């Protein structure tokens, strides 16, 4: 019986560590994504800041940003993710992730020009990513994360995609109002800043939940 107890105790500990790791990975992912997206857009802005930029400079900037994007994607491959653990995955998981993040942007960008906000369509494009990101995160929860939680009961302790997406959608009117009344720069800065705050708070929330697993003893 002692060896059975030892095995059971080991399995209990393994489960705790697994839950902790899984949720730490989720928290880390939000910290990393928030930092990388913001950094990316700040670099884009820095490159394109200033008037009278010659056409070739735009092309150079675009090529540079494509390289930065590729670098970010490669870096993300190395970020530990909860799904790297042995977890039950929903069918067509990859496609669901792509659909969650592609469709909202694919719908939002063509619609941007038709939004009657008294601004040129290209101006609206620079802030429309914000609500599209919010919808994409909610879609990621509904299409992927919710199924992960259902298939792996007790493993994922929170719903970070729903929280972050909901917060971004809820703060969208503020960004749009700023665009209309205070100008594009103000709205863009507000969107970027709010996104970092939302991602960081979401990461902290998931981290707190994860650490409770250990605190429970």
């Amino acid at each position, binding site marked *: 019986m002692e*060896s*059975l107890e030892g095995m059971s105790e080991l*399995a209990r500990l393994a*489960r705790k560590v697994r839950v902790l*790791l899984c949720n730490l990975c989720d928290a880390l992912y939000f910290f990393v994504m928030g930092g990388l997206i913001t950094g990316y857009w700040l670099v884009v802005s820095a490159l394109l800041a200033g008037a009278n930029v010659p056409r070739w400079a735009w092309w150079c900037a675009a090529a540079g940003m494509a390289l930065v994007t590729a670098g970010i994607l490669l870096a993300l491959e190395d970020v530990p993710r909860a799904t790297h653990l042995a977890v039950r995955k929903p069918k067509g998981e990859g496609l669901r992730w792509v659909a969650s993040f592609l469709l909202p942007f694919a719908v939002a960008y063509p619609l941007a020009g038709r939004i009657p906000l008294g601004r040129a369509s290209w101006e609206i494009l620079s802030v429309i990513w914000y609500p599209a990101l919010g919808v994409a995160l909610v879609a990621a929860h509904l299409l992927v994360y919710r199924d992960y939680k259902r298939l792996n009961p007790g493993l994922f302790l929170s719903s970070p995609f729903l929280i972050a997406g909901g917060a971004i959608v809820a703060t969208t009117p503020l960004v749009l109002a700023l665009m209309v009344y205070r100008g594009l720069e103000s709205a863009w800065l507000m969107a970027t800043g709010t996104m970092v705050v939302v991602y960081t708070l979401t990461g902290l929330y998931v981290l707190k939940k994860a650490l409770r697993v250990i605190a429970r003893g």
Partner: protein
Amino acid sequence: MDEELPRDLDPVLMNPKRFLIASILYMLGPRTMSFLRDSLGITWGDLYRQLKTMEEKGYVRVRKVFTPLGPRTLVELTERGLESYLRLVEQLDRMLKTLRSPPP
């Protein structure tokens, strides 16, 4: 020990070394063979033997990956391995509960 145990307990995972391997992979995700060998404190030969048994049963997948530090052999728990491990843990918990409860 085997004679005292019910027959429906997974014989592959009831081996202590294989149970440890499954626990590590369940807990930490895919690991390299050298990590498993160091964690368990066993020889290469022993590790190969245990992994072969688990691989034949479809519990683990062994594959070569190329890392910046050179090629590594990665071991990961399969869906089948995960299900079997969880089922065994559940059975053990149930059995221990029965053994601990006072006789009527």
